[in-house]
């Protein structure tokens, strides 16, 4: 038995573990630098979040140890069950959830609070991996693809009902996994085109956009005129794409802004893109608190000041004047990257981005070396979730993406976040130990 255990530990992928610890320690240091005051009597103050974060790191490592000691087949076996439980938790949260900062996505048991939406990422990953890897699933069929999409997006829908849209968006990262497993290239192209179309819709005047879309369509038509003459279907596709884009930008997006998205989300989207909220979308809510419109603009501005003032080398550890003095709101959670950018400058930011990218590439490497497709798909799930969090979080602190309030993995303060990312990673490590075993 002990020999077997020993062999388990010796098979742990040390590179992943080292990268995990590196990020966890950088996160501790960042939270510490934001919270520590020179006037504090001692650094061991349990009211401070860095001590809580340390405690959560302990818990995460303990849970990680349990995961390592668990049979790898266990995760495959419980995947649908855990997914069902996860959906149930998400569902009841809609009704019994606790309000925290305007979102309704937290469950409270006594003094402990956690976000089912955060934890459910693990369950969804497991369920998606399980479903796609089932022998009876043929991922080339539309039915299987639709079921996979449903598995990924049902939690997202429930989370949107909890008014935590940012977290819900994370679930769209599973498209990357499905792409790896055989979703056609066109999906990816269409996806990116859609993002481009959305951005253009937000940034450009509607009439100008209509003109551009039409010009592009005519241009494509002129270039492909021979094909179009021969192939009537292609002509229909071109016309319908043009029509679809026009309808999307002229009808669907205005409709979404007027009737679906919350006011704060509209504000965030426009303010991050450096735009004022257009008149037609702003008067939906009561006009009384118009002064507050710029709150997310303020976040990004302060965040940019903090990061920008770091310069090449940074101001040095504990010398971050912006972050130490609480200029950036939520700087120990969503905006923790400011602490790195301000104190360690471009060098520090570069280092951090490098660590993340190394970790994600390593995870893809691990995924690709799995014998069982369950483990591989799960590995891609982990990489995609990490990537989405990483890319969107840092982009929003530097004004490249809307402020949608998702955490930076392993760095942001918060028990739910750290624990769920740790569990994600440790399950992968556990599966990787048994990479030669066929898990079904």
């Amino acid at each position, binding site marked *: 038995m002990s020999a077997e255990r020993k062999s388990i530990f010796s098979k742990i992928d040390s590179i992943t573990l080292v990268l995990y610890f590196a990020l966890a320690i950088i996160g501790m240091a960042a939270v510490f630098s934001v919270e520590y005051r020179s006037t504090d009597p001692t650094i061991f103050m349990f009211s401070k979040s860095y001590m809580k974060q340390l405690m959560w790191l302990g818990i995460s490592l303990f849970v990680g140890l349990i995961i390592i000691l668990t049979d790898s087949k266990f995760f495959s076996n419980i995947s649908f069950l855990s997914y069902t439980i996860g959906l149930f938790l998400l569902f009841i949260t809609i009704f019994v959830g606790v309000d925290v900062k305007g979102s309704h996505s937290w469950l409270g048991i006594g003094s402990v609070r956690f976000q089912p939406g955060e934890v459910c990422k693990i369950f969804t990953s497991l369920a998606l991996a399980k479903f796609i890897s089932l022998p009876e699933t043929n991922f080339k069929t539309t039915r299987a693809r639709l079921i996979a999409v449903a598995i990924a997006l049902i939690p997202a829908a429930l989370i949107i009902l909890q008014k935590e849209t940012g977290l819900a968006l994370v679930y769209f990262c599973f498209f990357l996994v499905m792409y*790896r497993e055989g979703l056609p290239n066109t999906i990816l192209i269409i996806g990116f085109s859609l993002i481009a179309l959305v951005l253009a819709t937000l940034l450009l005047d509607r009439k100008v956009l209509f003109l551009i879309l039409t010009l592009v369509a005519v241009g494509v038509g002129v270039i492909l005129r021979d094909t179009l003459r021969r192939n009537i279907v292609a002509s229909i596709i071109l016309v319908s794409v043009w029509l679809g884009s026009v309808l999307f930008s002229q009808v669907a997006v205005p409709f979404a802004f007027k009737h679906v998205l919350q006011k704060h989300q509209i504000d965030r989207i426009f303010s991050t893109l450096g735009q004022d909220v257009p008149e037609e979308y702003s008067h939906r809510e009561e006009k009384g608190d118009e002064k507050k419109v710029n709150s997310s603009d303020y976040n990004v501005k*302060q965040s*940019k000041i903090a*990061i*920008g003032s*770091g310069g090449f080398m940074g101001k040095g550890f504990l010398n971050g004047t912006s972050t130490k*003095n609480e*200029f950036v709101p939520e700087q120990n959670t969503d905006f923790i990257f400011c602490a790195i950018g301000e104190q360690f400058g*471009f060098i520090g930011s570069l280092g951090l981005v490098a660590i993340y990218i190394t970790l994600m590439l390593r995870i*893809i490497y691990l995924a690709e070396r799995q014998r069982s497709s369950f483990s591989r798909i799960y590995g891609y799930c982990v990489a995609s979730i990490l990537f989405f969090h990483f890319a969107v979080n840092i982009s929003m602190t530097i004004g490249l993406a809307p402020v949608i309030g998702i955490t930076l993995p392993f760095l942001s303060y918060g028990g739910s976040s750290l624990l769920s990312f740790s569990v994600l990673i440790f399950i992968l490590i556990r599966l990787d130990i048994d990479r030669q075993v066929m898990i079904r």
Partner: protein
Amino acid sequence: MSNAANPRQFVIKFIFISIASVMLIRLLFLQIFESKYKVMANDITIYRKIVYPPRGIILDRKGRTMLYNQVVYDLMVTPNNVRKGFDTAQFCQAVGIEKAAFIKILEHVRIRNGGMRQSVFMEELSKEQTARFQENSYLFNPGFELIQRYIRAYPSASAGIVLGYIGEVSPEMLKRKQYESYQQGDYTGMNGLERSYEDVLRGQRGVYYLERDNFNRPRDSYRNGALDTPAVAGRTLQLYTDAELQAYAEKLMANKIGSVVAIDPKTGGILAMVSSPSYDPNLLRGRDRAKNYYALDKDATHPLFNRAMQASYQPGSTIKPMTGLVALDVGAITPSFGLACYGSYNYCGRPIACEHHDAGHAANFRLALAHSCNSYFCHIFRLTVDDAKFGSIKKGLEVWHDYFSNFGYGHPTGVDLPFEGKGLLPDSTFYNKRYNGVWNSCTVVFVGMGQGELALTPLQMANGMCIIANKGYYYTPHFVKNIGNNPNDPLLQPYLKKHKVTNISDETYSVIQQAMQDVVESGTAVGAKIDGINICAKTGTVENKAIVDGQAMKLQNHSMFVAFAPRENPKIAIAVAIENAGFGATWAAPIASLLMEKYLKDSVSVKRKAIEDKMINAHLIGKYTYIIDSARRLHDLRAYEARVEKRKMADSLQKATDSAMVMHWIKRQVKRK
């Protein structure tokens, strides 16, 4: 599944790396190529804390405090820190306000400064309020707190006009170069010594750089204080002024309009300067300053006007020693020159009245000065300016003008107080202008007896006495003896310079001094005599007129007196001027005498108690003061309104002209077509 590497993993890896690259490029711009974020970060996070040093204090010649910094407490509030279960009733009782007022002030503070910052709840708590608050302060913390602050305090409530007062620099002042180192909200000396010695009293502000947080609350020091400069306290001024003498002079001058200037002739140090009615300088500080200032400014007796150096009077007979000095020095007369005066001077057409009728009261210079013979001094003034060796009256008057200018008349003496007046000293140009060039010694004869176009400030009169006491020199009158114990401070250099007054011989001065001693021994001012001290003095009784109810009216005479003592070793020179009081000998002389006795003997002898009481209790503010003042204010208002009206008229006229021109132009264009 397939063992061959799936090509899509590379697509995904490519997406990861390319998006990370986009982020890094953005970071590169944000952190390295853009510098505005560093500037913005410093702007928002570094707080420049100004520490105000205590202002310099002012001591009198014996080291007694005349002006110091008094601790007062402001009650500060941080609205968000006021606890939920805060006992409002007890708090209101402690500081003595109504509950409604409490809520109102708190609401006001919250609106103005927000809930996180500490703001003033009540300014300058009284001693009782402070004590009651401190007793129960644990109940009111952490929302409420007392903050210590200094305000200026004048322990003897005197010398307000000398010491001056401080006030907030106004936006207009801030525009001037002189105030470039000041900021809005800074205090500066507005008048008196507070203004003249602002630079040394103010000290040097300390600047501390602190990091501040998002609510503007200062936190740690920035870069461990590497850029900080500590505050340097203002320096102490020691004056020549004798606080006791000053207070005594103010007491004697109570309920009179006038002034007293006493100077130590050996140094030019001013021992006392009173402008009466005086005011309590403690009124012009703290929270009621504006209100009190307004009241004082509106007062018909103008207590804020420093009559001792800003008002100028015709000197009357007190100028006679100077007239004599010039006449003797140019050789127009000798001390034995005599004039037969029988009560009037008749050489210039209309007779000029003299108080004395008996023959021989002007038989020589000594007698003439002792009896203050008008005829005699009018005549010797004429003899001076008409002296054949000058060639013409115009040149003669220039010579006289130069003498008087040398005595310090006709221009500010340079005393270390702001806004000094210069009096009036006429010269030939002045009279040419006034009389179209046609005038002679008879036209200007009144100047010889101190009436006419000559006007001096009491400070100039006292300084004149210093010249006679010193037999030919004076130091510019000034208050400050040393700055921070340094008597040779650069600021004091102008006052260490001896001013030699022409080359009048000692003998001439002796003649004048002897005659002035006679004034007290046997002349017009015997009441000013002090046992055992030889006083040299001159009385003056100055006619004056005012316009009352539209017609010129002769008012009660100004009572004047100048003196110095002791003759052998002069220690005090004094000038007293009391408006509309009567004879110089009746009021000004006794007051000057009492002051000299007080200064030279340290106390006033018992037998002069009666005269002292009489002086203190005399109420000599004429009823016309109020009428004249309100008439003048009305006149000023009318003049102001007229100016405004005129400007308006000019404006509308301009507009009318402009539009007429435009119309004209248009018409012409139309016609041309």
